[in-house]
């Protein structure tokens, strides 16, 4: 019989090989065998290599502040999405966060020409809608790989503390996708306040209405407060954005309109470097009202990961490759900073500053 003809060491070896293969497959899936693979920890490691570790803070958009308010839906959003947040007369509480890009939680506000606004809508039935928006309607790169390459090219030169212009130029030259973003930046002056800035979803999402029709959408919030450019006097104050917001909120609530832009067939949904034509249908879905701000060390937004793929029924991620990467990378950042909170490695809140410490 075959059973008796196979030698004992052969049978033991067969067991070892089978178990070894199962272990190796797991290790490969986890990325342990491919340290150069671009994965989420690798992306966040690169932020830490470039800009250092600031325990307790987000690895990007580290400097920010928390806001609270609500969204009053007017019902128009139901035309594209069955999400309960768009029902007529529906008021949904929101926890928001204004921030500036970068890993340094005490960077001067004027050091970057972009601002961000993240929102968490707490729907009545336990659903949530989280979005992370930028003050620029498009993104510089299309894929996670390009984002990583851009990050590597932006590594500050130890001698100057700034990115090497030659490396950045080389990156831009090799990636013409970045041109629309750079052109937009060259023609727009940052606003004087979070309150008079527009913020855009950047990525496309899929909205589904009550009848099951699915359409790609992007969204933006448009302030009631009119635009004014950042001034030279403001640029001299490292924390002018939070001071300005506190002063404005002390005088009364601030409002934005939430606009859904509906794609036409053929508009790209997988390319955040390209805007849709200006003629696309725009739906004013209601009013976002903010009435309170607090420093991020004590505000409710501190413990929120603004993962843009946390969506209510009626909204879903599109095929934009950046969305999954944002979700994966934000989770790593959240895991690291919450671990720093738990182990006491996070810096305590310094006193005498109204800016996020």
């Amino acid at each position, binding site marked *: 019989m075959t059973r008796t003809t196979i030698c004992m060491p052969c049978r033991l070896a067969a067991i070892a090989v089978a178990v070894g293969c199962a272990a190796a497959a797991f290790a490969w899936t986890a990325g342990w065998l491919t340290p150069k693979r671009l994965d989420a920890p690798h992306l966040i490691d690169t932020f830490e290599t470039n800009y250092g570790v600031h325990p307790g803070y987000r690895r990007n958009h580290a400097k920010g502040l928390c806001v609270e308010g609500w969204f009053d839906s007017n019902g128009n959003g139901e035309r594209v999405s069955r999400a309960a947040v768009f029902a007529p007369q529906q008021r949904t509480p929101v926890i928001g966060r204004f921030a500036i890009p970068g890993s340094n939680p005490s960077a001067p506000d004027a050091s970057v020409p972009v601002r961000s606004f993240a929102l968490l809508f707490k729907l009545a039935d*336990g659903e949530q809608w989280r979005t992370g928006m930028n003050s620029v309607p498009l993104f510089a790169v299309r894929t996670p790989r390009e984002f990583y390459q851009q990050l590597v090219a932006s590594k500050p030169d130890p001698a100057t503390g700034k990115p090497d212009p030659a490396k950045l130029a080389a990156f831009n030259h090799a990636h013409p996708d970045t041109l629309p973003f750079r052109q937009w930046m060259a023609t727009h002056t940052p606003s004087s306040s979070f309150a008079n800035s527009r913020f855009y979803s950047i990525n496309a999402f899929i909205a589904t209405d009550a009848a099951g029709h699915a359409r790609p959408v992007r969204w933006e919030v448009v302030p009631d407060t009119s635009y004014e450019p950042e001034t030279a006097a403001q640029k001299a104050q490292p924390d002018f954005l939070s001071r300005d917001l506190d002063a404005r909120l002390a005088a009364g609530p601030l409002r934005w309109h939430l606009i859904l832009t509906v794609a036409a067939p053929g508009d790209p949904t997988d390319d955040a470097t390209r805007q849709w034509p200006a003629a696309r249908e725009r739906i004013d879905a209601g009013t976002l009202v903010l009435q309170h701000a607090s420093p991020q060390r004590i505000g409710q937004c501190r413990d929120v990961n603004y993962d843009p793929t946390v969506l209510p029924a009626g909204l879903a991620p599109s095929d934009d490759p950046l*969305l999954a*990467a944002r979700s994966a990378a934000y989770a790593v950042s959240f895991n690291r900073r919450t671990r720093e909170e738990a182990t006491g490695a996070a810096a305590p809140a310094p006193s005498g500053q109204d800016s996020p410490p």
Partner: protein
Amino acid sequence: MKRETQHFTAVARLLHWLMAVLIVTMLFVGVGMVSTVSRLHDTLLALHRPLGIALLVLVVIRAGVRVTRGTPPLPADLPGWQRVGAKASHYALYAMMAAMPLIGWSMLSAGGYPVVLAPGVQLPPIAPHNVTLYAWLRAAHTWVALALYATVLLHFAAALFHALIRRDGVLASMARGEPRRRA
């Protein structure tokens, strides 16, 4: 059948193999989704939560089946240390099978995430929104997952050892039913 069976009951075997496939899938989905930045991340994450809750339901049913229907005896000639190892690893597998979904559910609760099983279908939180708690549970989810996979591999190796080295019918007791033919 009242006589002492040498094989696991059909329902126990069904639960074992179904959960074996799901748990191994789940462990690979888990380590894959926290790593990849591709669109697979979204797909795997959407699969991970409902699969985890399904496994929680299955382990409760399975524990009930094990308590009420019992298990076939281990071979009488099995050395004591292997007997102890078998018992201990089985208890450890049950403990981790039950713990993993509960840790995952409470971890998402503590992190302030909605526990979405399908669009519009979410479970209530079972822990307070507290990032310190989240950090410990998140670490535990990883370490228990690694311990679970290590124990699964040990279990796999032991099954092969019974089948190929000892040839004592232990793997057959889970692989198939009682033979029809009786002496």
